């Protein structure tokens, strides 16, 4: 009997010890987490990023006005469209500061996609400074990564305004059952080239003017399935001391993003329209240095639909995704690069994991030149059929 009592007491003591130990362990873990959350340094540094590589075959058919078509076939294991290694370095200081740096190697050049610091100042207000993707449209900032994009290439006309040096404010805020966001920036701006095209000005600003840009979006449904955004940009573009007369660019844009699960199919629709207007200027003919002008307005549009049977039971077929994308791009008539361009892309993707994809894309491009041949343009029609086999992973 004595032995039985002792055994019971021992059992109770063990249970109590277990409870105390468990509570202590939880408390110690919570304290460790608090310390880790406050401690700057290596524990808050991480490397993510992406790599994309693959194979591409192009067949290009060029037909000059009234002439005979010529066809050229190329095969490549890597080019600027289907090779990229971009490790992204993230470092946060507490929960207020975040530093992002993404160098990128595209097979030819080693560049920087962005290098900026963000300060989470208040709910709905993030202040950022440095070299960042200028807020305009939805593609460049959110959809361009190879492991996100549904087809192999970037849509034509989404490269501007690109990344630039400056400061900005952004945030996402509730609005009842809806949501809205803003993203505005003040940057060095774009640079007008001698033929009227635009490019990023780079680290050395080309003039005293700054460029204001911004995007505002509304998510009208409480499930965030639809987002509609509008963008604008305005700024001077002429090099200081150049012959241009107060040259400036105004860009307008609209974008849409709709993602919803209609069980068992996930529907994904994305689109962006961009218009670029440069005020009237005179450009230099490279052949004889004479001046010429044209209506320098460029527009581009892409629309994309993809479907994926995420809700089916088959573990293989649920990872397939079908995509279609249409692109139209109009460059100014009578410029040296004028063209009316259309592209149809078809994609079949297989998702090896949520961030790893194998893409098979077939792309058909048709371009009718509207260029001025006396200033260096090439007349004619170009058709390009391309097949891409591309692998992309986010790490």
């Amino acid at each position, binding site marked *: 009997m004595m032995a039985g009592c002792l055994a019971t007491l021992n059992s109770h003591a063990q249970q109590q010890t277990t409870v105390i130990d468990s509570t202590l362990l939880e408390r110690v873990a919570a304290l460790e987490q608090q310390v880790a959350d406050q401690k700057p340094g290596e524990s808050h540094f991480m490397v993510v990023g992406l790599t994309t590589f693959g194979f591409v075959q192009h067949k290009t058919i060029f037909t000059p006005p009234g002439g005979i078509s010529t066809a050229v076939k190329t095969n490549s294991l890597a080019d600027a469209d289907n090779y990229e290694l971009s490790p992204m370095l993230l470092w946060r200081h507490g929960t207020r500061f975040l530093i992002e740096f993404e160098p990128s190697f595209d097979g030819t050049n080693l560049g920087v996609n962005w290098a900026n610091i*963000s300060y989470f100042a208040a709910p*709905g207000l993030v202040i950022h400074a440095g070299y960042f993707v200028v807020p305009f449209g939805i593609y460049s900032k959110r959809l361009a990564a190879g492991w996100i994009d549904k087809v192999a290439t970037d849509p034509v006309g989404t490269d501007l305004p690109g990344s630039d040096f400056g400061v900005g404010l952004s*945030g996402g805020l*509730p609005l*009842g059952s809806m949501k809205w966001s803003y993203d505005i920036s003040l940057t060095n701006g774009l640079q007008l080239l001698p033929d009227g095209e635009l490019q990023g000005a780079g680290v050395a600003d080309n003039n005293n003017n700054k460029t204001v840009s911004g995007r505002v979006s509304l998510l009208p449904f409480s499930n965030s399935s639809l987002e509609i955004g509008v963008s604008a940009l305005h700024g001077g573009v002429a090099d200081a001391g150049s012959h241009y007369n107060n040259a400036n660019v105004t860009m307008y844009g609209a974008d849409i993003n709709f993602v919803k699960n209609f069980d068992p199919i996930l529907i994904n629709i994305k689109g962006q329209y961009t218009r670029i207007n440069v005020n009237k200027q005179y450009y230099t003919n490279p052949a004889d240095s004479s001046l010429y002008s044209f209506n320098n307005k460029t527009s581009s549009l892409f629309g994309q639909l993809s479907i994926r049977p995420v809700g089916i039971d088959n573990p293989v077929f649920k990872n397939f995704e079908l995509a279609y994308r249409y692109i139209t791009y109009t460059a100014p008539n009578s410029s040296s690069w004028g063209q009316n361009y259309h592209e149809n892309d078809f994609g079949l993707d297989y998702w090896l994991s949520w961030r790893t994809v194998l893409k098979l894309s077939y792309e058909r491009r048709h371009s009718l030149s509207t260029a001025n041949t006396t200033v260096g343009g090439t007349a004619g029609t170009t058709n390009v059929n391309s097949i891409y086999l591309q692998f992309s992973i986010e790490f």
Partner: protein
Amino acid sequence: MKKINNKTWVMLAMLTMIIAIIINGCAESKLVAAKSGAQLWAENCQRCHNTPSPSSFSHEQWVTIGMNMQTRAKLTDKEREKIVAFLQQ
């Protein structure tokens, strides 16, 4: 320091004021406030990419990733907090 056009300053100041006024007036409905981290994770991540697996990153890394995603996808602060808390479980 290079000179910035006066018109640019005025435009920037006006935009900042408008945003400040709207930020102060923003509030979420009860429907949105009641959403769980799992629901917000399912709804928001797939706007751009596939929904990530919670096991992809560590507890600490999810905090950093959450901040990075907030700057890109313009998540609200509450959305980010709930999604990160869900992914840390």
